[in-house]
C-alpha cells in the first residue's frame, strides 16, 4: 500500500505546485480565456454567424475556441518546468516518473476546465443558447480530459525540439481530431435536447481517448523525458 500512497502523494504535490504557480503568476487561465474570447469574436465575423446561432455551430465554436486556447496553457505548463531546469527537480524525485505526467495532465485539465466553465455562461450571453447545462458540462470535461492528456504528452515531446511551442499545435491537432469530432458531436447532441444516452457512441469515444492517452502517459512519459 505504501508505494501507491506515495505515488498519489507525488501527483498531488505536482498538481498543488502548478496551482500555486498559476495563482501567483496568473499566466495561464486568464491568457487562455482572453484568447478563447478573441477566437469567438473572430469566428463570429469570419463565418458570418447569425445572432440566433444554431446549436451545431455553437458547439463547434465552443470547441474550436477551447482547443486553440488550451494550446497556450499546455505550452505554458511545460515551459514552466523547462525554465531553470525545474523538470530535473521532478525527475530526481524518488517516484515512478509517470507521476509527473499525471500531475501535469491534471493541472492542465483543471486550468482548461476552468476556462471552459467560464466560457459556457459567456456563450449563453452572446447567443440564444443556454449552454450552462449539466450534460454539456460533463461532455466538456470528458472532452477536455482526453484532449489535455494527449496535449500533456505531446507538449513534453515538442518542448525538446528547437521549434518548441510552435510545434505543439502541429503535433496535437491532427492526433486530437477524433477527440474534437466526438466532443463537438456530443455537445451538439445535448444542446439539441438529446440525452447523454443518445450520444453514447461519442461519449465512449471520449472515454476511449482518455484511457488511451493516459495509458500512453503511464508507459511513455519517462521515455519522453529521459536524455
Amino acid at each position, binding site marked *: 500500500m505504501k508505494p501507491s500512497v506515495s505515488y498519489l*502523494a*507525488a501527483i498531488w*504535490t505536482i498538481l498543488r505546485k502548478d496551482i500555486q504557480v498559476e495563482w501567483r503568476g496568473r499566466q495561464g487561465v486568464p491568457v487562455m480565456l482572453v484568447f478563447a474570447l478573441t477566437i469567438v469574436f473572430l469566428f463570429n465575423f469570419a463565418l458570418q454567424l447569425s445572432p440566433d446561432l444554431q446549436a451545431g455551430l455553437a458547439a463547434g465554436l465552443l470547441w474550436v475556441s477551447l482547443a486553440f486556447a488550451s494550446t497556450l496553457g499546455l505550452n505554458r505548463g511545460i515551459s514552466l518546468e523547462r525554465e531553470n*531546469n525545474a523538470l530535473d527537480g*521532478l525527475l*530526481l524525485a*524518488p517516484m515512478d516518473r509517470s507521476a509527473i505526467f499525471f500531475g501535469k495532465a491534471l493541472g492542465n485539465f483543471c486550468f482548461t476546465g476552468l476556462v471552459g466553465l467560464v466560457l459556457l455562461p459567456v456563450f449563453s450571453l452572446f447567443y440564444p443558447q443556454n449552454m450552462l447545462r449539466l450534460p454539456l458540462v460533463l461532455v466538456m470535461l470528458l472532452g477536455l480530459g482526453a484532449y489535455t492528456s494527449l496535449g500533456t504528452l505531446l507538449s513534453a515531446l515538442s518542448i525538446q525540439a528547437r521549434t518548441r511551442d510552435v510545434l505543439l499545435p502541429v503535433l496535437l491537432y491532427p492526433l486530437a481530431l477524433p477527440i474534437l469530432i466526438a466532443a463537438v458531436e456530443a455537445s451538439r447532441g445535448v444542446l439539441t435536447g438529446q440525452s447523454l444516452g443518445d450520444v453514447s457512441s461519442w461519449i465512449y469515444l471520449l472515454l476511449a481517448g482518455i484511457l488511451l492517452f493516459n495509458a500512453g502517459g503511464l508507459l511513455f512519459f519517462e521515455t519522453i523525458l*529521459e536524455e
Partner: protein
Amino acid sequence: MSTQTSTLLSQIEMRDLVKRFHHQPVLNHLSLRINDGDLCVLVGDNGAGKTTLLRILAGLVRPNHGIVTIGGADPISDPQVRRFIGYVGHQPMFYQDLTALENLVHYARLYQVEAVQHTVIQAIQSVGLTPYQDQPVRTLSRGMQQRLSLARAALHQPSILLLDEPYTGLDQDAAAFLDDTLQGLHTPGRTILLAAHRPQRLLTIASHVAWLKDGVIHRHLPVDRLGEDPELGRYLQEVG
C-alpha cells in the same frame, strides 16, 4: 543523520560507462569507485564530460552502456535509490514565481520528508537565507539561489551529494560562504562528488581528486598523495 544503511548507500560505483552524443563518445568505457565518506573533486576541461557523468549518477541521463550502482542498486531503474541522492546542477531548478520557502516545501513533499515546515525552515536557516524566505526566487541573486539549491539538495538528508560546478558565477563572498556550507554538508557517512574545472580552492577540504580526460578517469588519487603525480600536479597548477 547517518543511519546504518547509509554506509552502504553512500558508495558510488561506475563500471564501463559509455555515453555518446551525436555518435561521439563523451564517456568512453569509464570506471570509477568512490568510497563512503569521500569528498571527491572531479576535475577536467570544459566539455570533458563532468556534467554528463554527474547526470548519469543522478539518474537524469541514461548511459548507452555500463553499470551505475549506488550502494548496490541502480538509480535509473529503481526510483527509491534516488532518495539517497542530492544533486545541484548548473540551473537552480526553482519556480521563479514561488518564494524560497514554497519551492523548498514543494521539494520536501516530493521526497516525503517528515515535518515539512520544520525541516524546510531549518534548511533555509542553515544557508543563511531566513530573511529572504518569503521572497519570490526571481528576486534572489545568483549566489543566494545557489545556496538555496544546496539547501534543496540536502533537504532529504541524502547520503550522496552530487554538485556540478557550484562556484560558477559566484563572487568572492558568496564563494567563501559556499566553502563553509560545503564543509557543513560533509558529515560523516556522506559522500560528495563535486565537479569543478578550477579546483584549487577545494583541495584543502577534499579527500580525493578524480581527473576526467578523454572519456575516462585518467587519475583518481587521495589529496595527500597528489605530490606523487607530477602530471596531475601540473594540470591542477595550470587550471588554477
